[in-house]
């Protein structure tokens, strides 16, 4: 019986989720930023131009305001929950332009990412090896119990 005890102990060690009392964690995720570059017809950058971003959920109200860099660029990260055409308006000194940028399928992708992240926080994110170990332990428990009673009955006979 001693070897069975050590076998249980060994399997339990490998199947247990690691726990560290004072650990720190850094999570990260990839996001999709949009960079625009505004120029005049001459090719000269529209430096420090006024930028207004409109989300497709409410295209009549500015979602974000800012200014371009000296190179006429501007970077923003659209809300991944809002798919559709994101409109960006750039104006300077009586000149202006507006561009529609389609942002699609971000909602589903984000939902999947969020689901994965929330799984890990709930502690249910076992590896396949750990799951297999736990299942094997459960089965071994039933078999061991069955063998134990079977041995007692055969000894009585």
């Amino acid at each position, binding site marked *: 019986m001693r070897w069975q005890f050590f076998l249980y102990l060994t399997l339990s060690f490998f199947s247990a989720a690691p726990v560290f009392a004072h650990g720190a964690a850094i999570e990260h995720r990839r996001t999709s930023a949009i960079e625009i570059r505004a120029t005049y017809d001459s090719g000269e950058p529209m430096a420090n131009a006024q930028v207004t971003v409109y989300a497709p959920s409410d295209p009549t109200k500015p979602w974000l305001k800012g200014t371009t860099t000296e190179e006429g660029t501007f970077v923003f990260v659209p809300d991944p929950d809002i798919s559709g055409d994101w409109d960006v308006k750039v104006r300077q000194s009586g000149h202006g332009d507006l561009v529609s940028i389609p942002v699609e399928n971000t909602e589903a992708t984000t939902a999947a990412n969020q689901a994965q992240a929330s799984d890990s926080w709930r502690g249910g994110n076992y590896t396949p090896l750990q799951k297999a170990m736990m299942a094997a332990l459960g089965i071994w428990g039933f*078999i061991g119990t069955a063998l134990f009673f079977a041995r007692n009955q055969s000894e009585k006979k």
Partner: protein
Amino acid sequence: MVKQQVLLTAFAIGLPLFTLGCGGTTPSDEETTTSESPSTSGSGTITLVANGEDFVRQGFVTKDGWQVDFDHVYVTLNDVTAYQSEPAFDPDQDQDIQAKNEVTLVSEPTTVDLAAGGAEAAPIQVTEEKASPGMYNALAWQLVTPEAGDVNSAMVLEGTAQKEDRTIDFVLNLDKPLAYQCGEYVGDARKGFLEADTQTELETTFHFDHIFGDAEAPADDAINTGAVGFDPMAELADNGSLNVDLATLEQELSPENYQTLEKAIQGLGHVGEGHCKETEA
């Protein structure tokens, strides 16, 4: 025999547990999404305005120092159509307006005076038309020669130019038919969103600083380097009066100046600050 029965019982109990333990994530109930199509019932009103901006209403100083004030600026519009374009129309790209809905706003030559109403006047209302709800993000329009009335050119500029001790009363008959395809209006506010029982405004905008330049802009700014100014026209004036048409200007101006003027006229049409694509009229 008993041992086999016990083993079978153990497997019978254990296997379902094994399946449960290793089973993949149970898919959540399929989300039922419903999307409501945008309301197409009812209609709203599109108001079309023509705007010569403060350059026309309040006057301005040209790139070569002439104070220009306008009495009348007549433009004749025709075939004005508002579109719901999908995708949005970009006049800088080699593409046409992809209309999923359109409404004709002007179907016969209509002349308006952009200088009417004085210095603080609002843009000139051209017409109002009922239209189905939606986002009207593209506009096509033409400048045409009037078929009747006193105005006989697609565009007529009447006013006074002053510089130092010279004053010139001018009438410029710029009869050059043009056609424009434009995207969405670009300005302080967004225009073109029409809901049932509401009103929205669309605008044809004329940038006359493209012809004369703007003293408030740097000399090397594109608005000035691409403008002809007023000096070349002032040289054609006789006794403080100048009344010319495009044919005369083509004859009298230097080829370079006339080319610049012609190009500036072609670039007059805008939607607010947004550029338009000039097409064949």
